[in-house]
């Protein structure tokens, strides 16, 4: 781990600036936002929302739906959406929103890096930025708040659970998400650290880029090679699904009390069902419903209240196949 770390668990520790905030000098622009225009009664608050493509995963679809439901005209918002999985396109869109003079810029960045300049521009123009879902690698003063999942914590919860299984030996296939995304960093870090300290064997560590197809191929290849493994740690449900497809083909049993432990993240409804059926063992929650928090923050800012904390961390838990109930599936499935 070289550059991450800082920004990822940067929540309440409130120290996020790693070594790269050289270009960003604060001029405290955030205080004077509310004085003109925007908050006039009857007028809609304009927000520009930059998000990843909703069909990236079930998680993202839920996230997008949630945002759309909240930032609608009935609630007093005029929202423009821009979707892209490409960081540079997102940056360009941010510049565009600044030109369009939105009041708020909501941002879920594709990459953690590369955002400081455009956020500085936003600040200079008096556009207030709120990060959601994903942290970025930029100085804290450049945004008002960030509402994110603590990926490192998610990872740690999962790894702790795994530790609790008390296997005689751990032989793990580690399927990573797109390298460099906050979720990948956090969830990988936990496993890598623990594996090193507890002497777990990582049979295979590959990025399947959130992609079920790739995950299937990777696991298939491990099976073909005849290597032994007893845990699949997939950093999202889709990849876990791909891995399981490969296992099924090769008649390797998986799930509660079987040969291979399957772990996923995101809590898709179908994934929780797999847990309920005992086909998978663990699913870590990643809460996509940030919009109400964002709305709170915007309301506060409009009323010139100060924010109590810069980083809000979503409440999340992990589910074990042996304890999960239908109720959980209905409540937490996305």
């Amino acid at each position, binding site marked *: 781990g*070289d550059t991450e770390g800082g920004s990822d668990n940067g929540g309440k520790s409130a120290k996020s600036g790693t070594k790269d905030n050289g270009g960003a000098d604060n001029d405290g622009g955030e205080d004077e936002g509310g004085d*003109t225009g925007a908050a006039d009664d009857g007028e809609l608050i304009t927000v520009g929302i930059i998000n990843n493509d909703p069909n990236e995963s079930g998680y993202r679809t839920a996230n997008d739906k949630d945002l759309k439901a909240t930032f609608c005209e009935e609630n007093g918002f005029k929202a423009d959406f821009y979707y892209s999985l490409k960081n540079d396109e997102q940056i360009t869109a941010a510049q565009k929103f600044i030109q369009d003079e939105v009041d708020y810029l909501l941002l879920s960045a594709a990459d953690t*890096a590369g955002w400081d300049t455009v956020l500085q521009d936003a600040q200079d123009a008096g556009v207030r930025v709120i990060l959601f879902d994903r942290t970025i690698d930029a100085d804290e003063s450049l945004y008002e708040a960030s509402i994110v999942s603590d990926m490192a914590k998610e990872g740690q919860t999962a790894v702790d659970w795994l530790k609790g299984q008390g296997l005689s030996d751990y032989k793990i296939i580690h399927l990573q998400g797109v390298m460099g995304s906050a979720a990948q960093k956090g969830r990988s870090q936990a496993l890598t650290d623990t594996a090193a300290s507890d002497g777990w064997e990582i049979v295979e560590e590959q990025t399947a880029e959130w992609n079920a197809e790739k995950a299937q191929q990777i696991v298939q290849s491990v099976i073909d090679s005849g290597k032994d493994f007893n845990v699949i740690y997939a950093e999202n449900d889709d990849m876990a699904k791909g891995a399981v497809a490969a296992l099924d083909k090769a008649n390797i049993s998986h799930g509660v009390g079987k040969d291979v432990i399957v772990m996923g993240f995101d809590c898709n409804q179908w994934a929780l069902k797999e847990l309920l059926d005992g086909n998978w063992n663990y699913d870590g929650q990643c809460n996509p419903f940030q919009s109400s928090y964002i709305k709170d923050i915007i309301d506060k800012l409009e009323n010139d209240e100060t924010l109590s904390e810069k980083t809000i961390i979503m409440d999340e838990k992990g589910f074990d196949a042996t304890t999960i109930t239908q109720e959980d599936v209905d409540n937490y499935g996305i």
Partner: protein
Amino acid sequence: MSIVKRRSGELRAPTKMTDTNLLTMITICVFVAMYIFAVLFLKKGFLKPQTFFNILNANAALIILACGMSLVMITGGIDISVGGVTALVSMSCAVYLDHKGGSLPMAVLMAVGIGLAFGLVQGYLVAYLEIQPFIVTLAGMFFARGATTIVYNKPFNVANEDFVKLKATRILIPYMGTYNKRGKYIPAYIEIGVIVAIALAILLFVLLKWAKPGRNFYAVGGNRQSALMLGVNVKRTIFFSHLICGLMAGIGGFVYFMHVGSGSPQHASGAEMNAIASSIIGGTMLTGGVGNIIGTVFGVLSLALIQNIVSSAGLDDAWWTGITVAGMLCIFLVVQSIIIARRKKANAAAAKQ
């Protein structure tokens, strides 16, 4: 005996415009029309000069890549490695500057070097071993993309001081700034990359228009066999087209790097398709022999403008972006094709006179 004799045709007025110029004109007109449309019907952002400058800033690298691409396409080839090279350049420079504590000039050299190396190898394979350019450069793209992740597989910001200073340097444009609704004065600016892009575009334009080696590119693209028989060194011309394109990709990669300020394996993904599409929109033909750098520049701007219009047209569902961009592209291409077809007919009729 033979009685071949012909009606004496009158001297026709010199044909109005070459294919190249015609296509360029179409592009420029469409661009202007779209911009006017945007100003009239979309958010007021389009009235601000900075919106235009932002398009330039964001697309400086693409302009450079597309110019190189046009050159290759004019000679009848294609280079789909440019996006990969861009990613490789930015990642290498980022690692070099940030992890290895390298210096800025060396980083620039490195960027140019990587570009040249790709151009050299691809050019040799295409020109001298006569392998299909699509395959060679497809392999080039695969290689560059893979190599990028081998260099380093995560995105990260570059904190090198010189670089950050360079990246933050903005060239302010006087009298173009505007006040926003909060009463703040926002100066208008362009980035250094834009200057580089414009300079390179002009350079290439001059090369293609006023230098003999430049005309050889057109000759080779128009008819390879004929060009050979007219005494053009076809292989060398093709080689140089790839070399220059590689060089442009290297420089473009660095400009891209300056714009985003980070290294990432995902950088510039799909840039090759954007570059090709821009060139085509700008009037360059994939079949070779026709093309113009000015057209290419406007091609890039048009494509960017389309995306910009779509993003501020208030189309909320994610799928609209892709569908609308494609729709506009489709209309554009069909119009272009109809105009070219009519023109061809006119040409054929002229040949009969």
